[in-house]
C-alpha cells in the first residue's frame, strides 16, 4: 500500500499543491514511463504519454479514491491514454527493424558482449510485445514489470479477474506464436550481431528466440 508520506502528498496535491504533486511524479515516473514505453515502443512518445498521464491525473485528482492504490489509478489512466494513441496510429506499422529500441542499440560505443546480448534480446521481446494487441500488452507489462496482482490488473484495466486470466494467457499464447513464426521466417542474425548471439549460446542462459536461431544455424 501507499506510504504515509505519499498519502500526505496526495492530500496536499488535492488541495492544489503542485510541489506535492511533483513529488508524486518523482515517485511514480519509473513505473508509468515503463508502461507507456512498453505500450508505445518509442522513448519520445513514451515520455510524452507518461507526462500526459500525470497531467490528466493532476486534473482529475479529486476523483481519486484513497482506498485504492495510487499506482493502479495511474496505470489505468496511462493504459487508456496509450490505447487511444495506438488507435490513432493504427495505420502505421513499426517493423522490428524500425523499432526505436533496436535503433538505439546501433551505436558505435563498445559494450560488453553480455550487455549487448541482453539488450538485443530485450529489444526483440519489446518488438514482439509491440505486435500484440494493446489489450493484451497491458496485462503482460503490469504483470512482469510492475508485479501487479490479477486484481490490480483488473482494476487498472476495468476488467474482471477472470478476464485478466484469460487475457494474460492469450497474450502469452500470442507471444509464443509470434516467436515461433518469427523464428521460422527470419534468417539468423547477420552482421555484427550474429557472432554475439551464436558465440554466447553455450554460456548465456538462452531465450527461446536465440534457441531457435541457434537451431537454424546448426
Amino acid at each position, binding site marked *: 500500500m501507499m506510504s504515509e508520506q505519499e498519502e500526505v502528498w496526495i492530500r496536499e496535491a488535492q488541495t492544489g499543491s*503542485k510541489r506535492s504533486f*511533483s513529488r508524486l511524479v518523482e515517485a511514480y515516473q519509473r513505473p508509468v514511463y515503463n508502461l507507456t514505453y512498453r505500450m508505445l515502443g518509442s522513448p519520445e512518445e513514451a515520455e510524452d504519454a507518461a507526462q500526459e498521464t500525470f497531467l490528466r491525473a493532476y*486534473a482529475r485528482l479529486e476523483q481519486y479514491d484513497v482506498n485504492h492504490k495510487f499506482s493502479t489509478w495511474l496505470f489505468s489512466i496511462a493504459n487508456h491514454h496509450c490505447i487511444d494513441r495506438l488507435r490513432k496510429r493504427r495505420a502505421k506499422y513499426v517493423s522490428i527493424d524500425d523499432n526505436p529500441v533496436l535503433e538505439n542499440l546501433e551505436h558505435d560505443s563498445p559494450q560488453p558482449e553480455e550487455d549487448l546480448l541482453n539488450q538485443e534480446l530485450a529489444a526483440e521481446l519489446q518488438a514482439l510485445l509491440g505486435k500484440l494487441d494493446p489489450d493484451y500488452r497491458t496485462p503482460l507489462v503490469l504483470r512482469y*514489470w510492475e508485479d501487479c496482482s490479477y486484481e490490480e490488473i483488473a482494476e487498472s484495466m476495468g476488467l474482471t479477474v477472470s478476464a485478466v*486470466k484469460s487475457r494474460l*494467457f492469450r497474450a*502469452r499464447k500470442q507471444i509464443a506464436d509470434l516467436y*515461433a513464426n518469427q523464428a521460422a521466417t527470419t534468417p539468423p542474425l547477420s552482421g555484427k550481431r550474429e557472432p554475439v548471439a551464436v558465440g554466447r549460446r553455450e554460456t548465456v542462459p538462452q*531465450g527461446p528466440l536465440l534457441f531457435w536461431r541457434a537451431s537454424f544455424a546448426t
Partner: protein
Amino acid sequence: MEAKKFIQGSGGRHRPTPEQEEEFMLLMSLSLDNLADAGEAAQFEDYLTRYPTFVTQWQGWQRLHQQFAAIPHAEPPVGFVDRFEVRLIQQERRRRLWLGVLIGSVTFLLWASVVVGVFSMGTYLFTNQGSWLSALVQNLTYSWVNLMQWVSTGWETFVIFAGTPQAQAIGVGYLLMSVVLLGGWLTVLRRSLHLQELPSPATVA
C-alpha cells in the same frame, strides 16, 4: 520446423484435442504466475504426463517467462520531472485562460440577451401595440388633468367663500367658542388636580 516444435511441442503418440491444448495453455499461464489452485495443478500435471508434446511447450513458455521477467524497467529520461513541471504550469495557464474566456463569454451573452430582450420588447410594443399604448398615455394624461382641475377649482371656491362677511363671522364665532371651551376645560382640570393634592380627613384626624 524446429522452432515451431519448440513452442508448440512435438513428439508423443497421442495428440491432444484443440480444447485440451487451450485448457493446457490457460493452466500454463496460471502456473507461471503461481496462481493455479490444487485442482488446476493436478490437471496440469496430468496433461504433462499424458502428452509429451506439452512438456516441450511448457519448457518454451517457462523460458519465455524468464526472459520477460529478466528485462529491466525502462528508465525515464533525465529531467522528466522538470519537463513535467513546465508542462503543468503551461496547462494551468491554458486552463485559466479558457476559464476566463468562458466566464467572459457567458457574461457577454447574458448582457447581450438582456439588451436585445429589452430592445425587442420596446420595438414590439411600439410597432404592434401602438394604439393600445397611445390610448393608455391619453387616459393617464386625462386623469392627471382632471385631478389638477378638481384641486384648483376646490381651492378657488374655498378662497371665494372665505372672503364673504358671513364666513368670516362664522369663523370668528368658532374661534371664540373654542377659546371659551378650552378655558372652561382648563379650569375644571386645575380644580380636580388641587383636590387630589389635599390631605384626606382621616389623615387630618
